[in-house]
Structure formats: C-alpha cells, structure tokens
C-alpha cells in the first residue's frame, strides 16, 4: 500500500504532463462537461419552472441538488475514469498484459495511469451551481448539515467507483461490459430529480438497488426537511464499503479468467 502511495504522485505527474501537451483537447473536454451540465440544469428549469414547486422542491433547491451531484461524480471522474476503458476495450483486446508483469497491484496501475483533469469541469460547475443556488434555498444551514453534506460527497466518490468497478469487471465474463456499465451509471443522473414524488418503487431502487439516491438525493432532502443527515451519511458509508468490496472481489475473480489473446 505504501509503495502504491509513493508511486501515485509519479503516475499523476506523468498523466498531467501527457494530457497538458494537448491543451486545446483538454480544454474541449472540460468545456463539454460544463456544457452537458448546463443543459441538464436548463432542462430542470424548463420542467420545474412550469410550476411553482414540486412538493418541497423548488427550482432553486433542485438546482442546488443538481450542483451537488456533480461534486462526487467529478472527483470520481478525475481519479477512476479508466474503468470505462476496462469495460469497453481492455479485456476484449487483451490490453491488461503490461499491468500483470509488473510488481505493483494491477488494478492500482490501471486506474492510476490516467488522472483525468477534465473531470474538474464537472467539479467546478457543481461548486458554482451550489454557490449560486444554495443561498436562495429555504435551508437552515448548520455546521452539522454542512459537515454531513461533505461527508456524503466524500463517501459518494467510493460508491461511484464501486459501482463502476463491479460493472467494468463484468467484462472478464462478457468481454465488453461498457453498455451495461453505461446503463447503470446513468442512474446517477436521475438522483437530481425530486425522487420523493416519483413513486415509492423508483425511490427504493434509487436508495437500495443502485444507491445513487442515498448519497446524492437523500442528504439534500434532509437539509430541506430538517431530518437527521447523519443517517444518510451512515448508510452511504455502508454502501461505499459494500460496493467497493464487491467490486474488488469481482475484479480479482475476473482477473483469473483474463486471456492475453483478447477476444
């Protein structure tokens, strides 16, 4: 573990130097994230703007929720983006060989080799949206609430990573699991909707099956209603540990099935 920690800054530095050699490309990627999220916010405005509010959710509150969802998503994007490559191509084309010949954890090498600083586009847009709309929401900001939100966002990074690792590792069995991963991952986009009013079945799916609602939606709802946010934080921690552990288990089992020849 210590070896990996020492190596990590070197990997990041190498990745940054590599990506910064194509500055225009990197800026285009950041811009695309920012544009995508701006359109997402505009969509919420067009839908929710047709009524004064949807239950407890005004447009401003939903905008704040939209901004919040981008923070763990953006951080996960920066650090663990190459799991998409695992899902789509790496197993199918037999590209994991170099990582298996070096005396360092293969999963660490695979995710550490790319620091996707374009993910900062999502992070910055998320923070800006929250900064604009948080003061306009009818929320009693307390120290406990603010710390709770930060803890949930932090735990959320690992839930994102766990889910990505689980479905990307399925590629060892199905050769290319990118479409499956994409379908599951896109559920995170629904966590910015007023889940409470979209049916109990859907709320349960978003809290317990694909738990994006647990660390993205629920903490914000707690802030608005004044409920205890720490229950959300506790369950987010349970989800993060369980999903990362399951992801690591599937990765290790899958790696045994890996064939260098690809498919």
């Amino acid at each position, binding site marked *: 573990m210590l070896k990996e920690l020492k190596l990590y800054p070197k990997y990041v530095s190498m990745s940054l130097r590599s990506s910064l050699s194509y500055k225009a490309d990197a800026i285009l990627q950041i811009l695309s994230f920012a544009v995508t999220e701006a359109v997402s916010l505009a969509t919420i405005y067009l839908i929710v703007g*047709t009524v004064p509010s949807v239950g407890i959710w005004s447009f401003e509150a939903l905008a704040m929720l939209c901004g919040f969802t981008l923070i763990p998503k953006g951080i996960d994007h920066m650090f663990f983006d190459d799991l998409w490559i695992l899902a789509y191509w790496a197993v199918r084309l037999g590209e994991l060989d170099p990582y298996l010949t070096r005396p360092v954890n293969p999963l660490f090498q695979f995710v550490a080799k790319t620091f996707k600083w374009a993910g900062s586009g999502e992070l910055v847009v998320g923070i800006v949206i929250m900064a604009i709309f948080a003061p306009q929401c009818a929320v009693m900001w307390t120290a406990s609430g603010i710390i709770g939100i930060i803890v949930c966002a932090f735990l959320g990074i690992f839930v994102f990573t766990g889910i990505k690792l689980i479905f990307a590792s399925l590629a060892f069995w199905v050769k290319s699991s990118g479409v499956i991963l994409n379908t599951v991952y896109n559920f995170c986009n629904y966590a910015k909707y007023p889940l409470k009013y979209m*049916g109990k079945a859907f709320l349960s799916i978003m809290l317990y099956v694909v738990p994006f609602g647990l660390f993205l939606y629920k903490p914000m709802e707690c802030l608005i209603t004044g409920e205890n946010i720490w229950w959300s934080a506790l369950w987010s921690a349970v989800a993060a540990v369980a999903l990362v552990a399951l992801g690591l288990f599937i990765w290790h089992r899958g790696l045994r099935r890996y064939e260098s020849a690809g498919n």
Partner: protein
Amino acid sequence: MKPIRTAKIYSSFTKTNFLLTFAYRGQVFLWLLGGLLTAVMSGLLWWAVFKFGDGATSIAGFTYPQMLLYMIMSAICGEALYCGTADEIARDVRNGVIGMRLTKPISYQGQHVAMAIGNFGGRMIVIGIPMITLGTIVAVFGFGLTGIEWYNVLLAVPALFLGLLLKNAIGFMFGQIAFKTQAMWGVLSMLDVFVSFLSGAIVPLSLFPSGVQTALGYTPFPSVISLPVRIFMGMCTPYEIAIGFATSLFWIVVLNVLGALWYKRSVRHVVVFGG
C-alpha cells in the same frame, strides 16, 4: 445506366449496416433500454410535476398522457435515429483509414448517407416499430390518450427519414473537426447534447421561451425529433406539416452542400499515419 450502378454501389453500404444492426442486436437492445429508462424517468418526473405542482391539467399544451407519449416517442426516435457519422469520421482520421477511403472512387459523404440509412432501417425493425407500438398502446389504453390517427402515423415515417438525413448531414459537418483536433470525444458529446436539447428530444420545444421557439423554427433542429413526434401524435396542422417538410428539405440541401465544401478543405490536412 449510371444512376442504377451508383445506387447499387451505395446500397451495399446500406445493406451492410442494416445487417450489422441484427448482428449486434443485443447491444442495440441495451442502448434502447437506456433510452427507455430515460423515458420512464422523464415520465415519472412529469407525473410528479403534474400531481405535486399547481394541479394544472395541461402544461405547455400537453396533458399528462400526451407528455408521456411524447417522452416515450422522443426516446425511441432518438435511439432509432442514432447516427454515428461524426464518430466514424473521427475514427477514420485517428486510425489513418481515411487515406484508404480517399483511394476509392466513391463519395465519402454518400457512403455515410448510405450507412446511416441502413442503420436506421435495422434499428427501426429491431427496436423502433415494436417499441413505438408498445408505447402507443400504453398511452392510449393505460392513460386514455386520444388523437392518434393512421394518416399521422404514416406521415411521421417520411418525417423521421428526413430527420435522419438532417442528423447525418449535421454529423458529417461536425465530423470535419476531427481533421483539426484529436479531442473528438468532447466535441461529439457537446454536439450530441446540443442536438438532443434543441431538437426536442429532452423536453418538448413548447416549454422553451417563445423567442427561443421562434428562433429554433429557422434552424434544422426541430425537424430531427420534435416534428416527427408531433406529427405522429396528431399535434401538427397540415400547414405546419408542409412547412416542417419544406424546412427539413431546405436544411438537408444546405447542410450537405456546406459539409461537402468543408470536407473538400479538410482532406487537404489529412495525415494517413494515424495518431
């Protein structure tokens, strides 16, 4: 004889892409599942807006059953009209395959049109027709939607086809950016988001401010999704349909001419080593 021979050459691209859809139907089904999930979520969101909003029975000219069918239809049409033209140009440039394409005595642009038509045909049979039928049955018998007429359904077919040609022309134009930058992932993401948003695939265009609606009326975007879906649902007058078709044809010609001119300039920058 020459037009027949030309049609025969390009039809082989159409046929290949048509058959490819069947070969990868599992993948196509998963993409459709993603699209349908989006439609279901949008349906649930609109249900929340109608039920927990201010109690209005109609929003921007849509009742809830109409909104539901609009969201289902736009999601399915969005998937059926999937057009990988810009993506394929980017791949050809990146891998250096473009060099080989240039040696062939056929139009690169025409080849993409033929491939898009084959792809569309396959997707309509595998997912489009079954899902549109299912969505309509749900909206009509489950939510009491009225106003679906057989002639509107028939008119929606050419409207969808024109939407495909427009999407292909837009894709071909923006695909030329691949000759200038390697960062096509960002460009294509932005293009996809813009086209979806401005064509009414995400929300009906009647929700946009009136000034924006008027401005959009002069662009090709509403003809891609909004027009065919609204024709299908019987929400367009004959005059609107005629104007919509004329606008689509106008933009198909303009965008293809612009695309051809841009392509002519772009190929001068080709480096066939890949990268």
